[in-house]
C-alpha cells in the first residue's frame, strides 16, 4: 500500500508540471491564433463601417442633387409666372425705371462695403441714394 502511494506521488508530481506547460503553450498558441482573427474581425468591421459611410455619402450627394433640382424647378420662370397669376398679379410694366447714378457715388459705396471690419463706418456713411431723394424732395 505504501509502495503504491509512493508510486502515485511519483506519478502525479511531474504530471502537474507537464500540464501547466501544455496549458501555457495552448494558451499562447490560441492567443497568437486569435490575433489574426481579431485583426480580420476589426478590418471587416471597419470595412463595413466604411461601406456604410460611402453609401451615406452617395445618398447625401444624390439627395443634394435632388434638392438642387427642386430649387431650380421652384425658380423656373413658368412656375413663377403661374404662381404670380394665381395670386392675382398682372404683367409687370414693360419698362423698368432706370435711374442714372453718378459713378463716383457707386465706387465710394462699393469700396466701403468691401473693406473688412468697416461695418460701423458703412452704416454711418450716407447711402448714395439719399442724395437722389433729397434732389427729388427739393424739386
Amino acid at each position, binding site marked *: 500500500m505504501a509502495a503504491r502511494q509512493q508510486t502515485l506521488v511519483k506519478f502525479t508530481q511531474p504530471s502537474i508540471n507537464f500540464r501547466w506547460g501544455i496549458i501555457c503553450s495552448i494558451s499562447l498558441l490560441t492567443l497568437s491564433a486569435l490575433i489574426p482573427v481579431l485583426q480580420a474581425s476589426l478590418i471587416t468591421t471597419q470595412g*463595413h463601417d466604411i*461601406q*456604410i459611410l460611402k453609401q451615406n455619402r*452617395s*445618398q447625401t*450627394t*444624390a*439627395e443634394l*442633387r*435632388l434638392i*438642387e*433640382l427642386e430649387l*431650380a*424647378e421652384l*425658380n*423656373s*420662370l*413658368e412656375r413663377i409666372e403661374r404662381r404670380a397669376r394665381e395670386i392675382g398679379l398682372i404683367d409687370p410694366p*414693360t*419698362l*423698368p425705371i*432706370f435711374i*442714372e447714378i453718378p459713378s463716383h457715388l457707386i465706387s465710394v459705396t462699393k469700396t466701403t462695403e468691401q473693406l473688412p471690419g468697416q461695418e460701423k463706418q458703412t452704416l454711418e456713411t450716407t447711402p448714395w441714394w439719399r442724395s437722389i431723394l433729397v434732389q427729388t424732395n427739393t424739386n
Partner: protein
Amino acid sequence: MKETMAHKSAQPTRRIWLPLILFGACITVFLGRLVHIQVINHEDYSSQASNTLLDNDILDAPRGKIFDRNGQPLVLSIDTWDLYISTKAWTDKESAKKAASIIANETELNDEDLQNLIEKSVLVDQIIIRDLKYETGITLMEKGTQGAVLLPNTARSYPSGKLALEVLGFIGTDNVGLAGIEATYNSLLAGKPGNFIYERDSRGSPIPFGIHIIDQPVPGASIKLTIDRRIQYIAEKELDKAIKKHAGTGGTVLVMNPNNGEILALASKPELSAITQLYEPGSVLKVITTAIGLDLDLITPKTTYFDAGITFVHGEPIRNWESLSYGLSTMTEVLQHSINTGSVFIVERIGAEQFYKYLNKFRLGHATGIDLPNEAIGIIPTQDDAGWSPVDLATQSFGQSISITPIQLISAFAATINGGHLIQPHLLMSPFSNTTESSSFYQAQDNQVISVETSNSIREMLSTVINTNIWHPARPKYYSSGGKSGTANIPKDGGYSDEQIVSFISFAPLDDPQIIVLVKIDQNKDNLTGTEAAGPVVARLIDKTLPLLNIPPTAEYVGAR
C-alpha cells in the same frame, strides 16, 4: 496443416485485394476527375463560378450641368437606378409573387406582367426599369425585395421644363449626347465612366455591401451657355403667339449680340430649323446688296435712279412688290420702300464676280460654325453653275434664288451694322473646367468684311426704314432701332407658289447696337407682309429684352408715344 493454413490465408487475401482494386480504380477515376476539374480545367470552372457569383457593370459618370449666361440651371444631372431582376431568384413562385407585389406598389408596373416577364426571360438579369427614381430605389432596398438588383445610374433633368430644349438637345440610354448642345459638347459634359463589380448569393440576390468600385467615375464638366433664360422664355412665347396669330406653319426667333456673336435666344419651329432649314430670305438681303455697293464705292446713300416699277434683265421683267412705282429714288429709299428694281440697279453696278465674292466674304452659303450639330450650308447659284443666268443675279440681289439659313442671315446682317466684323454665332459662353474650346470662337472673329464707314451708313439707312413719319409696326416703344423686312414666295416646281415666308430683322439701340432680333414666320395664311406680321414681334422683343441686359431706353423715345 501448414499447407492448409497457407491456402486458407490466401482466400481472404483475394477477397480483400479484389475489392481493393475495384475501390482503388474508382478512387483513381474520382481523383482523375478531380485533377481534371481542379487542375487542368481550373480556369474554366473558376470563371464559370465567378460569372455566377460576380457581375460587373459600367458606373456612369454624372454628366456636367448646363447653365444659362446668368448661372441659372437649364439642365441638371440626378441620380437614378436601373432596376434588374435576377431571374434565378424568382424561381420560387411564392417569393416571386411577394417581390413583384412590392415592386408594383412602388412603381407603375403590374405585378402579374412583371412575373410573366421574368418567367419568360432567358437572361440572368432582366432589366425592368431604367432611370428609376432615386427615392423609389432606396425604398426597394430597404424593403429587401428579393432578386431586385439596383444599379446606380444618372439621368438628365430639365428644371425649366421645355425651355430651350431644342438647343439643349438630349442624351441616349447610354448617356451619350445625341442632339443639340448635349451632342456638341458631349466630350466635355460626359466625364469618364467608372467600373464596378457586385457579388450575388446562391439565389442570385445581390449581397449587401457586395459592390466594389474598381474605377471611380470622373464627373463631366459643367458649361455656361450664352442663352439668357428670360430672353429665351420671351422669345419662345412670342414665336408661339406669332405662329398662332398669323396661322403659320412654323417660324424662328433669334436674338444675338451683334458684337460678339453670343446667341441670347434661339427659338424655332420645327425644332432647330433656324440652323437646319434653308429658305429664301427675300428683301432682307437688300441690306447685303446695298452694303456691297457702298463698300465698293459704286453707290452712296444719296445715289439716285428712276424706278418705273419694273425693269428688264435678260429680257425677263422684274417687278416691285405689288408693282408699285416710286419714281426718282435714293438708295436709302430703296431700303425704306424695299424696291426690287433698286436692288437690281445696285447689283448691275456691282457685277456677278464681285457680288459672289462678297457673299462668300459674308459666309452666305457656308456653315457659320455655330456649336450645334447638322447645320445646313445653303444654295447660292453662281455664274459658274450650269443653268445660271443674269436673271438669277438680279433676283438674288433682293433675296430670291438664294437659299440660306436664318443663322447665316443674322450673322451676315450683324457684320453690316457692327462696324463690318463678321462674327461667329455661338452658344457656349464658358466651360467651368479648364478647357480651351471657347477660345476658338474669338480666334475666328476678327474678320473685316466691309469698312466701318459702310457699316455706319447702313445703320443710318436702316434707321430710316423704321423711323418714318408715320407709325411703323417694327418700331420699339422705348429704343431706337433700325431694320429691314423680308417677304419671299416659296419656290415650287421651278417657279414660285403663292405661299410666303415673312421676316423682319432689326437691331437696337441705333448708336451702339447691343442686340439683333430676327423673326421669321413660315407660310402665314393671313398673307400679311414681313413688316406687318413679324415687325410688331421684333418691336416687342427689343422692348422686353434690352432692359434685361441693363440697357437704358433711348432718351428721346421715352414718353414719345
